C-alpha cells in the first residue's frame, strides 16, 4: 500500500438509506429500463468500496497520475486584502486536467473496468468533466463517448478539441436547450439501451442512487486531505469551509469528512448570475423548490408547471438547474448554509486572486472566493477559513477577456 492521500470509500454516516434517500431527497426516479442498471451499479460499488485492492489501486493513481495530495496553501495576499481571518486555498486547480473532476472520472472508470464494461459515456457542459473522463478513459483503454450540447460545443471549442485529441467521440446534442441538462438527458437515453456494456460516468453528485453517493465518496479525498492538512499546518480544524455549488461535487467532497465536526461552519455558494428572476441565475437551493430532475428528488429550478427553467451563470460549470440531493438534505438540516454570489462579484474575485496570489482561478471557484472574502471580514484574525479552489481558470480566459475588456486595454 503506497503512502498516499488515502481515499477511503467506506460510509461515515447512515445516509443515504438503502433506497438512496438523504432524508426526503435523492432516491431513484428513473424509467424501469434503467432500474436494473442502477441496481447492478449499486451492488458493484458496494463491493468495490469494501475491497482494499480497489481502493489501493485508486489511491496509487490519485498519487501518481492525478498528483495528489493537492496542497493546502495559506494565501497571505488574500488574507491581507480581506483584513481579518486567515484564508487557505485547497489547490484542486493543481490536479491533473486542472480541476477536481478527475477524482470522480478516474474512480468511476476504474469501477467500470472492474464491472467489465468496455465503454464509457458522460455528459458535459463546460467540458471539464468531459475532458476528465476522456483522460481517464484514455489511460485505462476504454472507449468513450461524451454528450455535449451544441450550444456548449460552440462556447467551449478548446475542450471539444481536447477530448477529441484524447480519443473520445464528442456527440453533439441539439435537443431542448442544447446545453448541459439536454446532454444529461441524451446520456441517460444512451445508457438505457447500452447499459449491458456501458458505464455512465455522471459528472456530479446528482442523478439516481447510487450516483450521488459514488461521486461524493470519490471526491471526499478532497476533504479528507484538507482535514489532515489543517491539523498539520494550522494545528486545528478550520473555522469555516467555503465551496461553490453547481451540481455540488467539489463541495460535497470537501464538506463530507467535516460533517461531524460541529465547530466547522460550511458554506456552499450557488451561482447568483445577474439577478433573482427565472432564467437569470443557477441557484436551486437559494431560489428553487424541491422537485424531480434527472433521477432524483432535490431542489430544482422549475416553472410552476414542473418544466425545467432556463439557467444562467457566468460560469458554465455552475450553469445547471439542479443540485445534489445530499446538499438539499444538509440545507434542510442546517448543517451547511447556502448562499449566492453574482456574476460581477465572481469576476471581481477572479481578478483579485490573479493579482494578489498569482493564481488564475476557474470562474466556478471564483464564486467561492468572492464569498470567502466577504466572510473573512466578519471573522477574527485568529480564525481560519478554507476555500476550495476547485479548478484553474485557463479555460475561462476568453470569457474573462471579453467581460473585463482586457483586449481593448493597452499598456
Amino acid at each position: 500500500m503506497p503512502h498516499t492521500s488515502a481515499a477511503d470509500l467506506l460510509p461515515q454516516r447512515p445516509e443515504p438509506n438503502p433506497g438512496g434517500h438523504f432524508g426526503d431527497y435523492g432516491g431513484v426516479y428513473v424509467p424501469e429500463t434503467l432500474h436494473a442498471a442502477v441496481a447492478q451499479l449499486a451492488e458493484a460499488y458496494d463491493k468495490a468500496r469494501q475491497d482494499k485492492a480497489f481502493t489501493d489501486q485508486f489511491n496509487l493513481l490519485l498519487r501518481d497520475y492525478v498528483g495528489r495530495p493537492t496542497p493546502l496553501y495559506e494565501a497571505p495576499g488574500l488574507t491581507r486584502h480581506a483584513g481579518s481571518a486567515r484564508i487557505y486555498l485547497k489547490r484542486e486547480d493543481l490536479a491533473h486536467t486542472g480541476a477536481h473532476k478527475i477524482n470522480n472520472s478516474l474512480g468511476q472508470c476504474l469501477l467500470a473496468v472492474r464491472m467489465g464494461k468496455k465503454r464509457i459515456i458522460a455528459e458535459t457542459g463546460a467540458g471539464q468533466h468531459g475532458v476528465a473522463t476522456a483522460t481517464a478513459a484514455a489511460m485505462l483503454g476504454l472507449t468513450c463517448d461524451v454528450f455535449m450540447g451544441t450550444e456548449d460545443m460552440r462556447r467551449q471549442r478548446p475542450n471539444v478539441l481536447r477530448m477529441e485529441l484524447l480519443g473520445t467521440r464528442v456527440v453533439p446534442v441539439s435537443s431542448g436547450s442544447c446545453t448541459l441538462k439536454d446532454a444529461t438527458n441524451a446520456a441517460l437515453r444512451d445508457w438505457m439501451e447500452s447499459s449491458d456494456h456501458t458505464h455512465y460516468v455522471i459528472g456530479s453528485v446528482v442523478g439516481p442512487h447510487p450516483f450521488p453517493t459514488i461521486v461524493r465518496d470519490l471526491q471526499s479525498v478532497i476533504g479528507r486531505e484538507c482535514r489532515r492538512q489543517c491539523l498539520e499546518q494550522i494545528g486545528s480544524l478550520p473555522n469555516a469551509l467555503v465551496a461553490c455549488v453547481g451540481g455540488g461535487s467539489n463541495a460535497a467532497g470537501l464538506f463530507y469528512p467535516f460533517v461531524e465536526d460541529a465547530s466547522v461552519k460550511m458554506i456552499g455558494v450557488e451561482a447568483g448570475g445577474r439577478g433573482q428572476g427565472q432564467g437569470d441565475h443557477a441557484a436551486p437551493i437559494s431560489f428553487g423548490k424541491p422537485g424531480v430532475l434527472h433521477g432524483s428528488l432535490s431542489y430544482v429550478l422549475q416553472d410552476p408547471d414542473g418544466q425545467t427553467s432556463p439557467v444562467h451563470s457566468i460560469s458554465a460549470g455552475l450553469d445547471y438547474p439542479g443540485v445534489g440531493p445530499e446538499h438539499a438534505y444538509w440545507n434542510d438540516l442546517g448543517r451547511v448554509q447556502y448562499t449566492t454570489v453574482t456574476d460581477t462579484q465572481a469576476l471581481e474575485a477572479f481578478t483579485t486572486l490573479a493579482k494578489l496570489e498569482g493564481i488564475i482561478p476557474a470562474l466556478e471557484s471564483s464564486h467561492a472566493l468572492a464569498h470567502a472574502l466577504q466572510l473573512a471580514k466578519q471573522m477574527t484574525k485568529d480564525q481560519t477559513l478554507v476555500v476550495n479552489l476547485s479548478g484553474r481558470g485557463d479555460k475561462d480566459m476568453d470569457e474573462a477577456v471579453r467581460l473585463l475588456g482586457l483586449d481593448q486595454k493597452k499598456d
Partner: protein
Amino acid sequence: MNRIDAIFDQLRQDGSKTLIPFLAAGDPDLPTTARLLTATQEAGVRVCEIGIPFSDPIADGPVIQASMTHALNQGVQPKAVLEMIAKLRPSLDMALVVMVSYSIVYRMGVDSFMAQSREAGVDGVILPDLPLEESAPARAAAAKQNLTFSLLIAPTTPTDRAQQIAKASTGFIYLLSRAGITGERAEIAQDLPQRVESLRKVTSLPIAVGFGVSDRQQVRQVVRTADAAIVGSAIMRRVAQCRDQGPDAVVDQVSRFVADLAQGAAADPSPTP
C-alpha cells in the same frame, strides 16, 4: 367501474384486441390534438394515450421529444391539456390515459394532479419515469380518484420484480417491447411472445405492449399475444411531417394512419395455432 377496466373486460369477452395510439398533446396545437382524438375514436380505437409535454422527457426518443418541444414552444402546459380533455370528454366514449412525467406530477402535487385529471375526465395515468419503489404516493392518489395506474415492465425487469410491478398496477400493464427509449423499429423483439406469456402467469391484468411498434403488421404481431399495442413515435412522425401543411392535412394523414393501424388490432386473418 373504471372505463378502462370496463373496456378491457368487454374486449376479452369479445375475444378482441385494441390499438392504443399515443398523441403528444399540443403538436401541432391543442385544437388539432382534440380533432385527432375524435378521429381516433372514429377509427374504432377504444383506449388512447395523451402525452403531456415535458421539457426533459428522458424515456422518449427524438420524435416524441421534438413533439414535446414543439408543444412547449406553443406554450402548451399541463393545465391547458386537461382543459382540452375536459371540453372534449362529453363527445368521447373511449378511455383516455394521460402519460406524464413525475416531475410535473410532483410539482403540481400528486393529489392535486390526480384530482384535476379525474375532474377533466381522464381514466388512467402512466408516469414513465417513476419506478415501483417511489410510486406509493402517486398510486394512492390515483386510486383515490378511481384512475388506473399502469407501471412499466422492461426486458431487463427480473420475473419476481415484474410480479411486484404487476401487483402494484391497475387497469393494464405497460410492457416495453425492448430496452431503451420510444421510437420506431424495423422488427419486433423475437422474445416478446414468451415475455407476454410469462407475465400472464403472474397477473390477470391486460397487457399492453409499447416502444418500437411502428406499423399495422407489427401491431398485428403484438396483439397475437398481448391485449393491446401502443403506437406513438410512428404517429407523431407523421404529425411532424405535415405540420407545415396545416391542421387539416395533419388530421387527414393521421386519421388514415390510425385507421390502418387499427386494422392490425382487428380480427386476425391468420391466427397462429
